[in-house]
């Protein structure tokens, strides 16, 4: 174990190296390019024994990952924004083929107009695919989540998308505790799938399926998502045992007695932590519900942790035009069968990297009586 100062992107690359994927197909796009630059250097230096495929598009990056994973090896790729959107068709196919690929997405807005800065539209619009989704707050969490993603994905045979906010996390130096390779190998043994493209046991994959069969295959995917809660819990337990860091589906920060709870996903959580501290000093009982897993969406855990809150402000960095902020939708859905229904404020806090300062969050809590819970709220 050692501590190092690393960029978020470097932390990701270190985690990927220690997870020992055999194939990494990748295409550069801001703000994830650092990750694949570091990985290609690791491969060239022989520190990471993997094949790095310099593909000609993100569509092909996803497709080459599909191929490698179908051949039975651990596979990683990284992208962002337009890249993720271009992958969309293949991302569907990967789910149906039950391939446990891990993909790192550096959250970034999608044009037009061009914008390289962070929001969560790119990954939130991929939420119905059947990929697990996890949003990271810190470089350490990003490092740990990559290892956890391979663990969970390979147990469930479902692909896993890990999100870091572009620049705010990808390009920021933070202290990261790096575990020993031995510990990582204990947590994450070599991936050995039962079925893969094998000339000694020839099979056909992905041939046309009629309604009955197709329907049952889709139902299996949902069943795996329902089972995923147990697998994720098992993953967190083992992770804590080996690495001594505890994780959950969500994180509760002072929610127990909070009257106002901010719901947030990603690096913005850090800013909200500072705001909540200052609000508490002013006598306002504020708390934070940090969404870590967005797929599966932990409805039960969320409702339980918000049981004392009367007012909830959702800090969305993506929006489903014509309805509401993406996280707000999911949150409201979670409360449908709950006895208590708190006021939920649907706030679009930032898109395309619009800056969010501590004062912005404090102002929100202080002016909560003036907020309209029936409308989408804009700054």
């Amino acid at each position, binding site marked *: 174990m050692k501590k190092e100062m690393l960029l978020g992107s470097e932390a990701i690359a270190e985690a990927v190296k220690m997870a020992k994927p055999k194939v990494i197909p990748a295409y550069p796009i801001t703000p994830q390019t650092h990750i694949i630059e570091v990985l290609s250097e690791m491969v060239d230096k022989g520190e990471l024994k993997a*094949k790095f495929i310099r593909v000609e598009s993100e*569509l*092909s990056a996803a497709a080459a990952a599909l191929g490698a994973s179908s051949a039975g090896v651990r596979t990683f790729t990284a992208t962002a924004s337009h890249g993720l959107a271009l992958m969309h068709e293949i991302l569907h196919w990967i789910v149906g083929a039950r391939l446990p690929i891990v993909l790192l997405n550096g959250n970034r807005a999608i044009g037009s107009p061009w914008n390289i800065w962070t929001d969560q539209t790119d990954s939130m619009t991929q939420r119905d695919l059947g990929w697990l989704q996890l949003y990271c707050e810190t470089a350490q969490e990003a490092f740990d989540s990559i290892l956890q993603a391979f663990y969970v994905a390979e147990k469930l045979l479902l692909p896993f998308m890990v999100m870091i906010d572009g620049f705010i996390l990808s390009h920021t130096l933070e202290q990261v505790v790096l575990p020993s390779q031995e510990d990582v190998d204990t947590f994450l043994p070599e991936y050995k799938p039962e079925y893969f493209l094998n000339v000694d046991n020839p099979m056909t994959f*992905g041939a*046309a399926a009629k309604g009955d069969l197709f329907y049952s295959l889709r139902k299996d995917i949902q069943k795996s998502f329902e089972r995923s809660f147990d697998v994720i819990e098992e993953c967190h337990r083992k992770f804590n045992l080996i690495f001594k860091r505890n994780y959950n589906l969500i994180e509760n920060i002072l929610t127990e007695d909070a009257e106002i709870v901010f719901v947030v996903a990603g690096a913005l959580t850090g800013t909200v932590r500072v705001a909540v501290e200052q609000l508490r000093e002013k006598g306002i009982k504020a708390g934070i519900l940090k969404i870590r897993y967005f797929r599966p969406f932990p409805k039960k855990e969320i409702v339980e942790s918000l049981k004392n809150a009367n007012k909830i402000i959702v800090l969305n960095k993506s929006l489903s035009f014509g309805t509401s902020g993406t996280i707000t939708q999911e949150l409201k859905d979670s409360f449908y069968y709950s006895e208590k229904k708190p006021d939920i404020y649907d706030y679009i806090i930032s898109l395309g990297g619009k800056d969010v300062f501590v004062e912005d969050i404090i102002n929100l809590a202080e002016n909560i009586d003036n907020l309209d819970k029936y409308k989408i709220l804009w700054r």
Partner: protein
Amino acid sequence: MDFREVTKVEYLNQGDFACPGCGAGLSMRHALKILGEKTVIVMPACCWSIIAGGLPTTALQVPLIHVPFAVSAAVASGIKNAYLAEGKDDINVVVWAGDGGTFDIGLQALSGAAERREDILYVCYDNEAYMNTGIQKSSATPPGAWTTTTPLGNPLEYEKKDIFNIVVSHNPAYVATACIAYPDDFYKKFEKAKNIKGFKFIHLLSSCPPGWKVDSQDSLKVMRLAVESGVFLLMEKEGELETKLTYIPDKFIPVKEYFKIQGRYRHLDDEFIKKIQERIDKRLKKYL
């Protein structure tokens, strides 16, 4: 290579879904006889997506993966690299794609894989239109040909895309054209492609009785007429060597003979056919 030397083992099961007389079905059967059991087939959307059968059945005795339309060469790259990462260097990873998946929607992935010198074999069975969706024009459709999206015939100002030379411009290890109506030449080229390391591309002319509007029993005949008239040239380019024709008829027959037995060219007048003949003659001069 003589057909008597070719294995009697069948890697294509009985009961596939090919139309009677399908050139693509026949081509797969014979290609697999050469490629053998250490072969993995990567298949984008194409007629063969149907021919291979639906879950839980399959027409092939070798591993087969169906993949989205645009990306077969990229998927094949991923598979090959996974095998190489595991130290398995002896598996033929073969893309089996139609002309739509090669000339049109899959061209970028094909170009990428060729440029990266991926050690894969890309086979395009070219039936000169989107036949699986019911005969729509692709960029492999020749001028004059009727399709449902060129109901008056594909205009004369269009040219079938020169896929052979597009691939050649990437300097791959091996590029060839072939046609199962000339089995010895076909076998020889698959044998070569199997044994050469690097990116290999084989462009197959593949007759389509319903799409070309020919009788099923004339399926091989129409392919022979394509070659005998110089419409489709049997050729290859190996590494740094010059492109060479691998079969030259004693005397090329007029293109009219090739057009005559196909309903898709029935509407053409003599003036149109004359212009096509001039193009063929001009192209032949380049290679003879």
